[in-house]
């Protein structure tokens, strides 16, 4: 994939005093007796790259659907760039590009047509639609497939087409619902890189994902949703720093002796099944990382490798969603 669309700045920009790209206040969604969203307050500033994380059924897709116009809210306020999503739906939708989780294009339509139609729905003239479609097909390596019906594309190509389609009208807010679900590692990395560029060019991005490392790598802010409630919202850095304890895994080149383990007793050593690995946990505010390393080396363990025990953000996520479930 190549650089970001270059026509973004050509679109008329109407600024409102509210600089939040997304703002929800007490957003409630009910399906019959089931309440999917319990009064969500979500703020996403312009230009941010925000990850919306949560377990299955937490309300991520419901939130996204309400923001993009696919679902009706039950109550509460929702605005995009200061415009109410119901009263000023045209203004909102012109600014939003949606990449849903499921493929949702006409499988019998050709790639080029799908992009051109999308531009037309957003009020872009024929010539400009053609120009943008060509540029996006080039950008997403779909040029050779421009006259191919969508049903003949591979899964990766379909995913790229979904993103290209969402960018046809140069949205100021890009919403992606699990964009890398089921794609191979190469494409995932390529998408990460591309989305980073899109964000740097000024586009606000809201991303839902099950891959915590994806959120950690891409997002500057994280909102965690569970059981229809936003239970935390902070910068990715602050959230990762939330845990006061640190765990590392030491892998030894030979079996770790009982004496070595006893010498590290205050670091809560947990031996691995084969006796070659040891997990150590310490409070990082009181035990400096450097002293832990010095003690490990002094214990006589033949160190082959040292690495963090878990993804930190994942630990925070599990901690928050677990405590939410227990309430």
């Amino acid at each position, binding site marked *: 994939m190549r650089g970001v669309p270059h026509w973004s700045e050509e679109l008329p920009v109407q600024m409102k005093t509210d600089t939040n790209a997304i703002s929800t206040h007490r957003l409630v969604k009910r*399906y019959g007796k089931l309440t999917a969203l319990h009064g969500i307050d979500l703020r996403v500033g312009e230009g941010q790259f925000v990850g919306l994380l949560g377990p299955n059924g937490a309300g991520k897709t*419901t939130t996204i*659907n309400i923001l*993009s*116009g*696919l*679902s*009706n809210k039950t109550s509460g306020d929702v605005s995009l760039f200061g415009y109410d999503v119901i009263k*000023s*739906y*045209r*203004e909102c*939708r*012109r600014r*939003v590009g*949606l990449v*849903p989780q*499921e*493929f*949702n*294009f*006409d*499988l019998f339509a050709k790639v080029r*047509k799908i992009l051109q*139609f*999308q*531009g*037309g*729905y*957003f*009020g*872009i*003239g024929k010539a400009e639609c053609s120009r943008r479609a060509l540029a996006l097909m080039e950008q997403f390596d779909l040029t050779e497939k421009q006259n191919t019906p969508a049903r003949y594309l591979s899964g990766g190509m379909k995913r790229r087409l979904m993103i290209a*389609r969402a960018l046809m009208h140069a949205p100021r807010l890009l919403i992606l619902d699990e964009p890398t679900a089921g794609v191979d590692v190469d494409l995932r990395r390529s998408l990460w890189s591309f989305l980073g560029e899109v964000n740097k060019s000024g586009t606000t991005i809201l991303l839902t994902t099950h891959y915590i490392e994806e959120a950690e790598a891409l997002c500057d802010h994280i909102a965690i949703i569970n059981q229809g409630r936003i239970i935390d919202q902070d910068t990715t850095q602050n959230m990762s720093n939330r845990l006061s304890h640190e765990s590392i895994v030491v892998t030894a080149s030979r079996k770790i002796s009982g004496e070595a383990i006893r010498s590290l007793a205050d670091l809560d050593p947990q031996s691995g099944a084969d006796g070659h690995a040891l997990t150590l946990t310490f409070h990082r505010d009181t035990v400096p990382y450097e002293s832990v390393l010095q003690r490990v080396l002094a214990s006589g363990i033949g160190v082959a490798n040292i690495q963090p025990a878990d993804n930190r953000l994942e630990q925070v996520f599990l901690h928050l969603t677990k405590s939410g479930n227990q309430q």
Partner: protein
Amino acid sequence: MTRRFEFIGLRTLLGREIHRFLRLPNQTLLPPIITASLYIVIFGFALSKRISPVEGISYELYIIPGLIMMSIISASFGNTSSSVFSARFQGFIQELLVSPMSNFEIVLAIILGGVVRGIVVGALVTVTCIFLADVPIHHPGPIILFAVSVATIFSCAGFISAMWAQDFDRLSVFQNYVLTPLTYLGGVFFSVNWLDPFWQNIAKVNPILYFVNGLRYGFLGVSDVNLWGAAGFAIVAAVGIFFLCYHLFRIGYNIKT
């Protein structure tokens, strides 16, 4: 400033609807011509010698307006029902729901797509009938009025059917159990005056009887029903059912949660 009407979006969606049926002529345009030709050959040429003229008009000519009306009904209904159901089934109706187009513009474009197909097919069948049976055109005004209003009514009916259906089986319910019987019992192949009084009263509840006779008046100058009543009914029904479609789409019936 927000535009009150998005012409580009409307034009794009209408263009897509038209492009949809034009790219499949073997499914959408040619079969009605073949069907109408077969009816003319079998019922007209073969049987007309055994059937007395109706109100001074040969049987082969008498059935032609009904055949044209059948093709308009079938084409306009089929266009919207397949288009909307495919869009729901494959999920690409979401392309429209997230666009800045209004519900009214979306519904109007889809319905117009069905109307265009109905009129195009009706025109092709008419040309075929003129070629095969030298059918006259007595009053072009009623022909246009009834063709457009009936295409609108059944384009809307296809739209509603597709919004309601949850699977392919249900999609065929309206066509098989409502549309086809009403069409065949709507005076395409007979005059209601041939029926006993009881069955005449039953037949007069069938709206298609009025549409067929309206078109018949336009082509042949004869009708079993009051023309003004039929025209008024067609216009009111077209407007009414269009706004029903708009209402269903606006509330997100089976398309929004």
